[in-house]
């Protein structure tokens, strides 16, 4: 009965598909897995805490989105916000990039139209993860244009979990950057498409993507300088062609016109110096094309003469026009933030308000590794592969990589711009290396006979195996590292704090919301709240009360005035508070719980900013230090510090609280010192509310006493 042994094999269902179909299926599978992963890895904070907006700026975005969703676009556009910058107010419609709000309001409206009752807050919370899924797909497309589909998939998988990007796009982190990275990569993709095809179609699409980018983030300036830089580089390398001429002319003309429709941008694209490079390159493009045309028509000697004259003439003319326009103020000088990009020490020396923001600090080396891990090493590899086979598109990604690594070094927050290019280049690097070695595995398996004769490749298969194993191990550690960083470092909402108690259970400090909600419920509707500007957005969004200064730090003197009030003695501060018509004052105090980013630790910035304007000349940083130059809050501390308003508000009645066993009462757990000024009463303020863990303290400004009392 041996006939049973014959096996006529059918093809498996997978094999039955044609290779193209298999290819598509695999790509779609990997890509959708990466997209889902990028969404779900950002949900740590929602699962651990709740669906809540994080940090500071997102609260403003959330508030404006809600306004837009409820009131419609025109009232949003004309919105004058009297809740902020009292008594100045703020024209919201003209001072923000509305892309983010419009995006989520549109999603909200569409869902509502489909009778899906979703809260605006939930749209806002999940917008960033959604857009990072889209970013994953765009990264794949872009990398595919630059190299091949394999690199695209690796890059997409990498960007889906890269911490440098996750830090700004976890669920709840509802900020411009969340969608801007998507817009940026989309614009790059379409730009590469336009450069490769040289059609107006792709150029126009690129301009539209650029418009979306402009509408959503101030970082578009990087983009509008990078694309011209690419064109210049192509000109220098002699790769300038009609394709590039068409692509750039379309993108620049359409893009500039579209970007001017955003009221916050207005005429900047033709006036400010940040945009001049793009304009210059546009002119240069025309010249180059013209020169190419003339060169093809004229004999060589004639052309040389003409070329030189034209060069000198245009150079002289443009310098003259530029100079005149700058002097007459038509081209605005560069803004502080832009200077600080070029010269990291600029802000520190000149504008304390820029320097005071932690995300504007230069990046440390460790945070490069922390945010990018494996990518840091794979980035140069990718660069090598790009250089080894230079194309128009590759030049772009090289430029993008090199410039953004510089900017990321200057400012921590620009790590965000670096992360995608790191992923793309690392993706190219990893994929190229893996392809090289994986091919050798194939060879070694199929025809073993040829192997014997290629003696110069010793142990080819084994080496390939080893290499691939090592690479795999690296990629696995990358995954673990990314997930760990996301879960530990980037998934706390910062509005709700949590700590471990002695027995290991979790304690939640919900003091911020407690205080804001108290303000919302139990103060008059028109009460004016003074606090340091960090908490401005949160107070307007959560407490719905008028504030003096907020995170949109456009008016330095106003912020400085608040800083002066905080840094002055009670009587002086009272004058300022009367002048500013303040009803309540809010301070953050971490001395009881050990929350270190409180107002006392920020106090020196208040002093610096307070003293940076004319009216605050009398406030000198030196006065707040001990004679030996230390900032101390204990008995040794400078008497001016120990009697200023901020100190008194933070430590009012704290002198009798026992915070730690074995320590005297009034022991500050952040500064690790017993406070120096304990028993004092407040004359012009009264304690209105203090939260459960004393994190937020609110004081009411007393009215002037009645005559004769």
């Amino acid at each position, binding site marked *: 009965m041996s006939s049973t042994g014959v096996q*006529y094999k059918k093809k498996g269902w997978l094999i039955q598909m044609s290779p193209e179909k298999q290819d598509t299926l695999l790509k779609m599978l990997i890509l959708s897995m990466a997209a889902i992963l990028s969404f779900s890895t950002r949900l740590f904070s929602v699962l651990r805490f709740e669906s809540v907006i994080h940090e500071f700026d997102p609260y403003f975005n959330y508030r404006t989105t809600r306004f837009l969703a409820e009131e419609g676009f025109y009232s949003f556009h004309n919105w004058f916000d009297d809740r902020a910058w009292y008594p100045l107010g703020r024209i919201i419609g003209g001072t923000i990039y509305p892309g983010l709000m419009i995006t989520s309001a549109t999603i909200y409206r569409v869902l509502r139209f489909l009778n899906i009752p979703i809260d605006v807050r939930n749209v806002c919370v999940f917008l960033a993860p959604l857009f990072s899924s889209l970013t994953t797909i765009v990264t794949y497309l872009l990398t595919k244009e630059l190299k091949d589909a394999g690199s695209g998939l690796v890059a997409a998988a990498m960007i889906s979990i890269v911490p440098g990007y996750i830090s700004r796009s976890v669920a709840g982190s509802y900020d411009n950057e969340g969608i801007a990275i998507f817009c940026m990569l989309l614009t790059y993709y379409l730009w590469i498409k336009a450069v490769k095809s040289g059609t107006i179609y792709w150029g126009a699409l690129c301009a539209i993507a650029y418009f979306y980018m402009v509408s959503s983030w101030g970082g578009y300036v990087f983009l509008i300088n990078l694309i011209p830089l690419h064109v210049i580089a192509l000109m220098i390398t002699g790769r300038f062609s009609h394709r590039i001429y068409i692509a750039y002319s379309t993108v620049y003309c359409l893009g500039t016109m579209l970007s001017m429709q955003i009221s916050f941008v207005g005429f900047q694209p033709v006036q400010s110096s940040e945009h001049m490079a793009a304009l210059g390159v546009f002119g240069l493009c025309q010249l180059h094309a013209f020169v190419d045309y003339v060169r093809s028509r004229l004999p060589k000697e004639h052309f040389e003469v003409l070329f030189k004259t034209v060069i000198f003439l245009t150079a002289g003319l443009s310098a003259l026009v530029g100079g005149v326009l700058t002097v007459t103020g038509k081209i605005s000088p560069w803004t502080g933030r832009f200077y600080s990009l070029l010269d990291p020490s600029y802000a520190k020396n000149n504008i304390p308000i820029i320097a005071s923001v932690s995300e504007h600090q230069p990046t440390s080396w460790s945070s490069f590794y922390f945010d990018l891990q494996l990518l840091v090493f794979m980035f140069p590899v990718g660069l090598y592969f790009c250089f080894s086979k230079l194309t128009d598109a590759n030049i772009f990604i090289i430029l993008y990589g090199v410039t953004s690594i510089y900017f990321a070094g200057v400012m921590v927050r620009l790590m965000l711009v670096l992360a995608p290019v790191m992923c793309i280049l690392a993706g190219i690097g990893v994929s190229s290396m893996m392809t090289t070695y994986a091919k050798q595995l194939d060879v070694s398996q199929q025809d073993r006979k040829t192997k014997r004769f290629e003696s110069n490749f010793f142990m080819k298969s084994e080496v390939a195996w080893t290499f691939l194993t090592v690479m795999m191990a690296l990629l696995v550690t990358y995954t673990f590292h990314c997930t760990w960083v996301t879960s530990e470092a980037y998934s706390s909402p910062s509005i709700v704090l949590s700590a471990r108690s002695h027995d290991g259970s979790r304690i939640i400090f919900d003091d911020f919301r407690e205080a*804001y909600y108290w303000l919302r419920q139990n103060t008059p509707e028109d009460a004016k709240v003074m606090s340091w500007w960090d908490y401005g957005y949160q107070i307007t969004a959560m407490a719905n009360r008028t504030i003096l200064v907020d995170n949109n730090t456009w008016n330095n003197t106003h912020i400085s005035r608040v800083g002066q009030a905080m840094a002055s003695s009670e009587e002086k501060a009272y004058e300022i508070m009367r002048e500013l018509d303040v009803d309540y004052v809010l301070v953050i105090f971490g001395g009881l719980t050990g929350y270190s980013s409180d107002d006392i630790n920020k106090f020196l910035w208040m002093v610096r900013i307070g003293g940076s304007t004319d009216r605050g000349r009398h406030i000198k940083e030196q006065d707040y230090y001990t004679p030996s130059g230390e900032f101390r809050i204990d008995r040794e501390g400078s008497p001016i510090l120990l009697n200023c308003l901020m100190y008194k508000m933070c430590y009012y009645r704290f002198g009798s609280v026992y915070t730690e066993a074995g320590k005297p009462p009034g022991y500050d757990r952040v500064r690790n010192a017993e406070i120096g000024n304990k028993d004092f009463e407040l004359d012009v303020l009264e304690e209105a509310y203090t939260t459960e863990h004393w994190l937020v303290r609110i004081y009411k400004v007393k009215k002037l006493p009645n005559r004769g009392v």
Partner: protein
Amino acid sequence: MSFKKRILFCITISFLQFHTFAQDIINLNLVNNKVERNIDISSQIVEITTEVTIENTGKEPAFYTLFSLEPEARLHLAYIGAVSQEEGKPTLRVFPTAIADNKKEAFWRIELKTPLQTGRTVTIKVETVFTHFLIPYPSQITQSERQLVYYHGNHYYYSPYLTKTQTTKLTLASNSVESYTKLKPVSQTDATITYGPYENVGPMSFNKMTVHSENNNPFLAVSKLHRALEVSHWGVISVEEEIDIHHAGAVLKGPFSRYDYQRDQSGVSSVKVFKTVLPASAMDVYYRDEIGNISTSHMRVLDDSVELELRPRFPLFGGWKTHYVLGYYVPTYEYLFNSGDYYVLKMRFVDHVFDDNVIDHAEVKVILPEGVKDIQLKLPYQVQRKPDQLHFTYLDTIGRPVIILEKSNLVEQHIQDFEIHYKFQKILMLQEPLLVVVALYLLFILVIIYVRLDFTISWDPQRESRLHASGLVERVLKHQDKLTDIYFQYDAALMKYKVNKDNSSYQATVKKLNSDHKNEAQAIAEALSKMKQDGSELVEKISELQRLDRNLKEQFHHHMTLVEKLISGKMNKLTFVESEAAITRKKEELAEKLQALTNSL
């Protein structure tokens, strides 16, 4: 009684209950023989229970008795109810009425269970509940002070009839009393003050009673309650209560000191936490407000209820307010009953918020399923019905009917069931799943159309021929698959034949298989000829495939004759085994080749 009739009956009853505003007269023949009043001011509400023994001294039997309230008390009245003290303690119907010649006063008519005959007495117990009747004095206190309240009342029972003898007992919140009016005889023991007995007090007598005492019980009042009940026939009813709550006691004066509050628990009249009791089957409870979850609450599941310990974000001092949303789900089967297409929803109009709660204004929204008809309401007490609305949620097309009911000034006694009767066709439950199915179906059709049809304007012959060729190859492979099946069947048929030697069935099978094989081979040949026309480069491979197939078929033929010979005894076993082994080897070889070839396609 049929169902419809029952509904009709219910409506008539409720009509009678709420809309009778009769003109009554005061029957002076009725006399209050004995009145015992119990005024409870130990919480934030004032609860007065009056036990009256009424005697009919006239000739006619009395069908009802009248009840009246002092003008200032009237404004604070939240609830009035009467129980007869006869056998079985039946509840008596009470409703407001008017007296033709006395417009100043307000009267309630209490209908007696049985007419009161001449000379007979009846004892009834009237329960009245007043809200915001206690006045904090001083109206502003500091954090460390205790809360004192005034109660202004009447020493006498305010009645349109003569009262022969009466006593009043006042229950206070604590022993400390600042002052109280002393209309003798009066006595105080611990937290009770007893007035009376007073004899022969004329109708509508008023003598102001004032009690000033300490009361640190929570003076919480719900200023607005939005209660939304969303009924789903799919299993759960969602209940969401949006509550505006404030401390209605003495207002906090001066600063709030967290230090004092934490050190010596000062602020005795403030409210740190309160308890809400939910139905026992409540699940997925949430407690939040506009800015997120309120992380301070505890839930205890008891046998007959779910007890929630709610802590507002901040302690509530006098004059402070807060706002929160409390929601939960209860299973439908506990509250929705049906017979056929007729449904009855039976739920509480308002639910427990905290003990001795006061709800100044409640709005109850009932969202019924889509497609509900013939909605009828049955309410335990008079409420105002607002115009119906429509509500749209997941997969709704025509909208769900929303019934909106409103009532002011509610207390614990108002926690009663109301009923909504409606008609709903069960088939409509399928509407939503069908909607999803249709939507997905349309989506897939769109995708299929997009993928299958060519929407390009330009004609690309290369792409076209490639697609054509790959289509043909796919067809060949499909037929080859079928052929493979046939090979298996050949082997199986031979095996079977060898074992059971059933010639007829074997012949039939082989015949069928032969014709199948022929069809499939024919189909492949057709595809091949088409490919030849296109000039495809795969022609050679397909021809090779055909050749291999023919060879294999040949081997099967050999095998079959061999087996037939063996069965018919023309061949001995030994030679059969040898030649069969040879054939099998050949078959294996061919099968391997075939496989390699199909894989390369």
